[in-house]
């Protein structure tokens, strides 16, 4: 119904796929998106790039009608979305389709069932036209060059194929005109990416009313895939550049902005005094698993905080898990205070003195339905164990109370189920859980993930002042600000290898430099 341009449109409007006018979204205490104006043209592949928290995903959610804007409008031919009327259904009617990072399909149903769900082809009287649907789906599969059949069970297909099918559904079956691709390239293989790019180009050329908006935080991808790119920073669209006329380095500069340290600057501190004589706490030598990370070497001293920086899939998460025994390494060696270690299970690592804070708090760390007390003590029950394995309960409660007070966890009591607490308080409890095992090394994966903005500096302070006081800390963060604020050294991971080491006190120990290395932007 939107295929025919209305005759009243001016030439400028005819060239325009959609336009954002003063689009704004406020959350309590945060201005997530701040008066964004943006025009995306028909036939264009438009990139939106920015660091974590720059407002990309909120912006895209507003375009897709998932979040109503606080102010401003999304204008597409045929209508608009604004604070009053924005809904996913309305966005859909305007021809807008968002391909999410993780497609939501009915896993037990076939590809055909999923692609035609709710819009089945019929031969009349409600009887389905299976042959017709199968043909259409086979067509989609061919065009995307996928390894699947219309009768494949969706759940059996790799996530990358599911993602591309979601794309195919939007373009070929729903005939959406405004396609938003949210980090879709993150999980695609190199070869697949190139093919997808080719397909986007062909499609844009074939039907001139299509536009693609690609959300990414990978500079290289945006450079490769897009015609123009809009840079988001602190909720604002700071620049829209023609991709052909810019380069990775200047794009990186736009993204980072003036090199100023924002966020928990008060946690910044002088470099740890090097204790040259001391034996390193933890040494990794040529560590590799033959797949996700290769030839990693570093050493960690007591009192030191090392940061691992890198994109998703850069190998930093895998390396951290390997140090804790959650996954094996094939080559190289890890030494803890001089003796070689290799753990088959987390409890062995804990016993040896390595504590690990996982990234996905609710899935991997929080024990739901259980009180603060149990969540604090679960890794250190040995401490309060009496005869026959019975626990000195009062001793346990005393410790839990003490630790809870020490980190100022806001909870009515230690008997409150942990589920009632906020993300920041849960995280503090988990940090208490780790520190009660009195480890030599803390491995922290995104310690401030899912924590209120206001609570982040306090958590980093704990990492810096308390955890690093007696131990060594390795910390992963997607925020370069946090790494600069907290770490003595930052190791940058790129495609499974450590490509750069930045040290506190050196002139290149800045948010901007870390960001560029993380993105794999070459030195000039």
């Amino acid at each position, binding site marked *: 119904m939107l295929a025919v341009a209305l005759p009243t449109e001016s030439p400028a409007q005819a060239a325009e796929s959609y336009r954002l006018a003063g689009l704004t979204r406020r959350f309590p205490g945060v201005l997530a998106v701040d008066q964004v104006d943006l025009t995306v043209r028909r036939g264009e592949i438009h990139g939106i790039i920015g660091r974590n928290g720059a407002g990309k995903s909120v912006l895209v959610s507003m375009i897709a009608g998932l979040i109503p804007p606080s102010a401003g409008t999304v204008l597409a031919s045929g209508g608009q979305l604004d604070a009053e009327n924005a809904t996913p259904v309305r966005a859909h009617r305007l021809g807008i389709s968002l391909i999410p990072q993780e497609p939501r399909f009915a896993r037990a149903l076939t590809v055909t069932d999923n692609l035609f769900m709710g819009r089945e082809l019929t031969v009349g009287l409600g009887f389905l036209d299976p042959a017709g649907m199968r043909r259409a789906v086979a067509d989609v599969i061919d065009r995307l060059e996928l390894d699947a059949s219309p009768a494949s069970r969706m759940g059996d297909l790799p996530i990358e194929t599911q993602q591309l099918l979601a794309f195919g559904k939007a373009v070929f079956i729903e005939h959406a005109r405004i396609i938003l691709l949210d980090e879709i390239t993150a999980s695609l293989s190199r070869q697949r990416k190139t093919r997808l790019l080719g397909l986007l180009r062909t499609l844009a050329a074939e039907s001139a009313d299509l536009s693609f908006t690609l959300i990414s935080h990978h500079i290289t991808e945006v450079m490769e895939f897009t015609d123009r790119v809009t840079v988001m920073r602190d909720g604002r669209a700071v620049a829209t550049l023609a991709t052909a006329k810019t380069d990775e380095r200047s794009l990186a500069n736009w993204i980072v902005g003036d090199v100023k340290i924002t966020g928990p600057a008060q946690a910044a501190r002088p470099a740890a005094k090097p204790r040259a004589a001391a034996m390193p706490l933890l040494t990794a030598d040529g560590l590799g698993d033959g797949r996700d990370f290769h030839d990693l070497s570093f050493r960690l001293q007591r009192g030191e905080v090392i940061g691992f920086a890198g994109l998703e899939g850069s190998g930093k998460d895998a390396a951290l898990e390997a140090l804790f025994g*959650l996954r094996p390494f094939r080559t190289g060696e890890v030494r803890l205070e001089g003796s070689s270690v290799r753990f088959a*299970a*987390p*409890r062995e690592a*804990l*016993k040896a003195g390595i504590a*690990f804070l*996982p990234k996905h708090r609710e*899935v*991997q*760390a*929080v*024990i*739901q*339905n*259980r009180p603060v007390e*149990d969540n604090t*003590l*679960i*890794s250190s*029950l040995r401490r309060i*164990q009496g005869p*026959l*394995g*019975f*626990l000195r*309960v009062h001793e346990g409660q005393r410790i839990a109370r003490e630790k809870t007070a020490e980190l100022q966890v806001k909870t009515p009591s230690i008997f409150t189920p942990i589920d*009632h607490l906020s993300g920041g308080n849960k995280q503090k409890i988990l940090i208490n*859980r780790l520190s009660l*095992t009195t480890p030599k090394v803390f491995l922290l994966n995104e310690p401030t993930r899912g924590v209120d903005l206001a609570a982040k500096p306090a958590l980093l302070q704990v990492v810096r002042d308390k955890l690093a006081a007696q131990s060594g800390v390795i910390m992963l963060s997607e925020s370069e600000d946090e790494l600069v604020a907290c770490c003595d050294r930052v190791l940058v991971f790129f495609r499974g290898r450590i490509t750069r080491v930045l040290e506190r006190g050196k002139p290149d120990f800045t948010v901007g430099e870390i960001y560029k290395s993380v993105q794999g932007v070459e030195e000039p």
Partner: protein
Amino acid sequence: MSGSLQAFVRTVFERHLIWALLVLLVLIGLTVPGFLSTRNLINVLWAAAPLGCVVLGLFFVLLTGSLDLSLESTFALAPTLAIMIVLNWLPDLVWPGLTMPIVLVIGLVAGMVNGFISVRLGVNAFLVTLATLLVYRGIVIFLIPEGIYYLPIEMTFWGESRILGFLPIAVIIWFVLYGLAFALINYHRLGKNIFALGNNPEAAFIAGVDVDRTRITCFCIAGVLAALGGLLEVGRLQSAVADLGQGDILMAFAGAILGGTGLAGGVGSVGGIFAAVLVISIIENLMNLFGVEPSVRQIVFGLILLAAIYLTSLQGRVRVGAA
């Protein structure tokens, strides 16, 4: 004052609805002549002891997020094998007084088999224990198709005899077991580990809990408790029959669920299942006293159970509403 009353009522509804149900049943019982007599009450407890053991065993397995259907067969297998060993196979070597430890060891092995196959070999516990349910029962039927009667006192002692002339030892064992389980669940490392892995196995693993070993331990505990329950029942009936406990696993599930045990794992309390076992036993007793015809008894029982389970299911919603 009314505020604290309200809070009390709310607590009852949120956590202890099963106790309210128990009180209600006792109140109904008061109107029935003969219910309140010491003899009748003792009988209620006595009849409840074997089921109480099986429910407690199932409770441990359910807390880990697994289940064990074979408990009702272990219930028969352990005493049967012990009786065969003592009376037929090794009558000269084994003193009949050793029946109890032998029963417990057989229960342990039966539970360990379930635990090992389902945990270490990673086979669905429903399927594993469905198979062992058949195998264990099959062994019993093979060994004692006609049943064994006139058992020596050493074998029936635990289920049959009374101290002070009125209190069955079985009832004392039952109480002690629940007390022990309460301590184990609330004040022991094992209990903390069980709750941790029942609510979030991945988090428990990362936090250093030996998840597999804890799970297998729970299967072993369940086997031992079911075996002990079987011994008490054999003593109470003074005979071992091939269909001992057959079909009782459903009642054990009913008890565990009525007592507030979550089927998904990690939720439940010893007090809750204790009350639930009493509730089941009292319902049966009241049906006896009311003279409900045996042919319709099962229908009545099923309906009462349905109502009771509906009522206890309300407490989850009360809790959600309050949050």
